[in-house]
């Protein structure tokens, strides 16, 4: 599964994307955020306020309760500021 990061989430984690194998027990987006935060200080800093993190699965906005099973691409980013 591909993870993508944008804006300050990307900067704090220190990379724009990576491939991961989803561990057992990570069912929802919320679970994924909790698991990522434990990986290192960059993830911890980026995801410290999970409520500020927006998530897209396969390029469609989802909320944090969404299941992640079968996702090809999950993106994490701050609230959008385009337009």
């Amino acid at each position, binding site marked *: 599964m591909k993870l*993508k990061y944008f*804006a300050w989430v990307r900067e704090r984690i220190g990379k724009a994307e990576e491939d991961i194998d989803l561990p057992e027990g990570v069912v929802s987006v919320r679970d994924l955020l909790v698991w990522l935060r434990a990986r290192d200080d960059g993830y911890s800093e980026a995801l410290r306020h999970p409520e500020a993190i927006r998530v897209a699965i396969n*390029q*469609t906005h989802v909320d944090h309760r969404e299941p992640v099973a079968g996702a090809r691409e999950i*993106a994490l980013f*701050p609230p*959008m500021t*385009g*337009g």
Partner: protein
Amino acid sequence: MGGAIVPDVRIQAEDFDLAAEVSRLTDGRSDVGAVVTFAGLCRDEDGRLSALELEHYPGMAEAEITRIANEAVARWPLKGLTAIHRYGRILPGDNIVLVIAASSHRQAAFEAASFLMDFLKTRAPFWKREHGADGTAGNWVEATEADEKSSHRWSDFTQR
């Protein structure tokens, strides 16, 4: 929905040409009575900024704006709908975003353009970073409460 128009959505680094984009929707037609355009431009915030840098999520940016545009097409009787959003480094006074809505009547054109901008602000995956007048990369722009509220004006829009 027979006869519904297909929105023209483009994500690009290059500038756009307002007059050319309006002509593209109206030339050779005599059924368009109202054309509303919205152009969003880069401000320098009283000299504080030298540029904005716009990051985007390729693929999703176009997909998400297309979803919002199709919602507008379903909601108002439009003759044409264009949305162009730029990314990359943009200087004060330069264009960032263009929305054009063409209809028989003015209210539909005004509302569709305003609707598209409200949702584009809160749902299209773009992020602005400020570059200071001294050239250094500065803060990411924070999303505003006001923008979030504006999108709630269109209360029967189905969040997906």
